[in-house]
């Protein structure tokens, strides 16, 4: 069991890192290098199977699937990162406040977080998107709305752990102001745990965004968001496998890469596993 800390970065991990970097680069710049215009429809060339001309075939409106996949990486991945960044900030603000203030506010906020987890997220998002109008932005809001409790609970737990450490108790006795404790003790110590959670959540949020696009309350046509691509091709699932398979695989591979990295980070960074080992 001693190999937990000395875990070697294997070929799998390197492959995942390589893939994740490649996907991030594609998300940033992929839109500029697409072989075809990802939005240009050509009904006469619809549903062509993969070929030399269209490596990943064309969709129901004759658009090049590879080009849409490349351009769509930006929408899918950047909106995932936006959701995570916002829930990270909001969730941690709530969680850390809750831990510091304690008492009834702590109770209230944490009970609220528990209730929130009881919402059926898809049905909630349906209502939410209907209120804001269907758009990728609405889907992002709906996810932020339903995701924050995870980070609130996690950051509260970490903060409480840190606050119970003897050196923090000492600092309190010396009259160190709260903000200093947050900045110098909580944030650095929480960083490791949060970065693991963030990496693992990338796949979960990405699945959620594509799920919302799939039921029609996320990205709107002609945006090549990956979930929306599956939704747009679902009617052809029986006759033109590539229109459903390709964007699904893209989601799957991306999610897998980030999961592997998250898992690796957990082994490398997680203080709980490190300490126990």
């Amino acid at each position: 069991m001693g190999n937990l800390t000395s875990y070697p970065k294997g070929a799998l991990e390197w492959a995942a890192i390589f893939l994740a970097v490649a996907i991030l680069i594609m998300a940033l710049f992929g839109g500029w290098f697409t072989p075809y215009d990802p939005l240009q429809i050509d009904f006469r060339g619809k549903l062509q199977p993969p070929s030399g001309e269209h490596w990943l075939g064309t969709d129901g409106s004759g658009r090049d699937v590879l080009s849409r996949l490349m351009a769509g990486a930006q929408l899918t991945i950047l909106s995932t990162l936006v959701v995570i960044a916002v829930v990270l900030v909001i969730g941690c603000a709530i969680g850390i406040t809750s831990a510091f203030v304690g008492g009834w506010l702590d109770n209230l906020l944490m009970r609220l977080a528990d209730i929130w987890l009881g919402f059926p997220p898809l049905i909630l998002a349906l209502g939410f998107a209907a209120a804001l109008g269907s758009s990728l932005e609405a889907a992002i809001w709906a996810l932020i709305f339903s995701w924050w409790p995870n980070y609130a609970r996690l950051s509260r737990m970490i903060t409480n752990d840190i606050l119970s450490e003897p050196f923090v108790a000492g600092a309190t006795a010396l009259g160190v102001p709260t903000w200093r404790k947050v900045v110098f003790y909580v944030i650095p110590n929480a960083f490791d745990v949060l970065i693991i959670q963030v990496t693992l959540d990338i796949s979960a949020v990405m699945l959620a965004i594509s799920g919302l696009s799939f039921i029609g309350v996320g990205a709107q046509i002609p945006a090549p968001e990956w979930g929306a691509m599956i939704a747009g091709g679902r009617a052809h699932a029986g006759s033109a496998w590539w229109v459903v398979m390709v964007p699904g695989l893209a989601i799957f591979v991306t999610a897998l890469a980030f999961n592997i990295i998250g898992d690796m980070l957990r082994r490398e960074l997680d203080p709980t596993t490190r300490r126990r080992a």
Partner: protein
Amino acid sequence: MAYILQRVAFSALSLFVLVFITFLLSHVVPGDPAIAAAGPNAGAEKIAALRTEMGLDEPFVTQFLIYCGNILQGDLGTSWFTHQPILDDLLRELPPSLELVVIAMVINLAISLPVGLLTARYNGTTFDDIVRLFAMAGAGLPIFWTAILLQQSFAADWQLFPVAGRIGFEYRAFEGITGFYLLDSILRGRPDVFFDVLSHLILPAFALSLLFTAVGVRITRTSMIGEFRKDYVTLARAKGAGEGRIMFRHVFPNGATPSLTVFGMQFGWMLGATVLVEEIFGRPGIGRYAVKAVTQSDIHGVVAVVFVVGLVFLLANLAVDMTLYALSPRKRAEG
């Protein structure tokens, strides 16, 4: 006892907040149920009359209080579109969905618990690595995508399972007692129906459970690893107890308890996610009912679905909490 009461009271309060937020949300939604209910070319007068009749003219707070009063009397209202008591609608739609979730949960547990235990025992081996890879892969599968792929391959192409629906054509006249066909077929002594219903459940349940199973394996593995490290295991090993005995008599029951909390929550989340699977596999159920209610702005229908799904979520968690409470000597001492 105080602990139990506190939990129940908290659950009731949660449910109230849940209903309030949903009610609020559905009123922000721009759809006008009166226009939808009146039909095309109704004219302004008729729409206005319907709006009054449906109670949409009342201020929001009044509407909410009336609604809460009705709920307390067990009345979820009458749907503006099905014209049936919503409770009746839900009692019809809930069993097929719960049946799906229960089977998905069974698949989840049947994989998560043993695989979690074994990977914890053989932590660090190639077997562990492979399972971990599978778990990570499973956590990256969009439910709707898996559902489409499973349906197109196993059902449409290879014809190993039915494509869609809840019960086979030849059994369409089968009348249930409880609405849970698996249970009903046993009660009626119809093994043929039982297996037919089960075959309709396998693919959708599998599609629904994959994502949750991936998490389940991971959680179980972590808590089992923690358990294997406990002193009593070292002690038992030192005393020469067999590995099998250690695993199944000590580690498994103790290590499974913390993951129960997660499985409890998963039950509720699965029920909320049935919509994706029900649409694709053409199954009746609460998810499809919810989508229909949302698309019609059937506010009472939407709120009722959230209420019921929330209720199931809380009950599942409550049940898990109670079980843990009953099992844990520490909690008993505190209570």
